[in-house]
């Protein structure tokens, strides 16, 4: 299935886009998604290890399964305040 992923800050800067598509198998975990993301968008490699994956505005864990209609976002460590 195709996942539309919101990107922020340096992740958005490296890809030149605020949203990208990532193709994963149905039932893919967050870990699977991370692999697919890096393979399909190698420009994210410099920060891939530090990216957070948020599912419906919540921090995710690697074992979680990506739901079909969720809002997915990827971003590097935060620096607000």
């Amino acid at each position, binding site marked *: 299935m195709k996942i539309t992923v*919101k990107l*922020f*800050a*340096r992740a*958005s*800067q490296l890809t030149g886009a605020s949203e990208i598509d990532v193709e994963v198998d149905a039932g893919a975990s967050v870990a699977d998604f991370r692999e697919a993301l890096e393979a399909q968008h190698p420009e994210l490699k410099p*920060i891939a*290890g*530090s*990216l*957070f994956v*948020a599912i419906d*505005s*919540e*921090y*995710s*864990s690697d074992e979680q399964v990506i739901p079909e209609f969720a*809002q997915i*976002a990827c*971003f*590097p*460590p*935060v*620096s*607000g*305040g």
Partner: protein
Amino acid sequence: MPLSPEDRFVELTDQPIDADRLTQFVTTPLSGAVILFLGTVRELTHGKRTISLDYDAYPEMALKKMNELVDETAEKWPVQKVAIVHRTGKLELAEASVAIALSCPHRGDVFDAGRFLIDELKIRVPIWKKENWSDGTTEWVHPGADAPSTNPRTEAE
């Protein structure tokens, strides 16, 4: 004690923050102590000169996390009213990027609760700043971006 919607004000804005309005919002006869914290744009960082900052936010998640922080703060301290506002977009020197105001019956609690709110905001709330340095370069700030990501701890865990 859970804080009702009328006792909290949580906002992202691309306009200058009116800090005085927040101070007045949290002031009540139930309280004896009010604190206002402002994060402001500093010119010098490790000897480098900042011209301006750009703040980017993931609005839905930022507001959700800011409200969670308000909930956790109200569980830990006898907070009467809280306001958290974070700025987005371009900020000039000395402008406030974040404002936190809150009130409690006694002074010790406003200091502890205020410190908790700003410390946790900087860990959990998805907002990022880009430094526009005086040498013409720009740089997204991502603390610890060289290390693998570890989710911010939350009370639920």
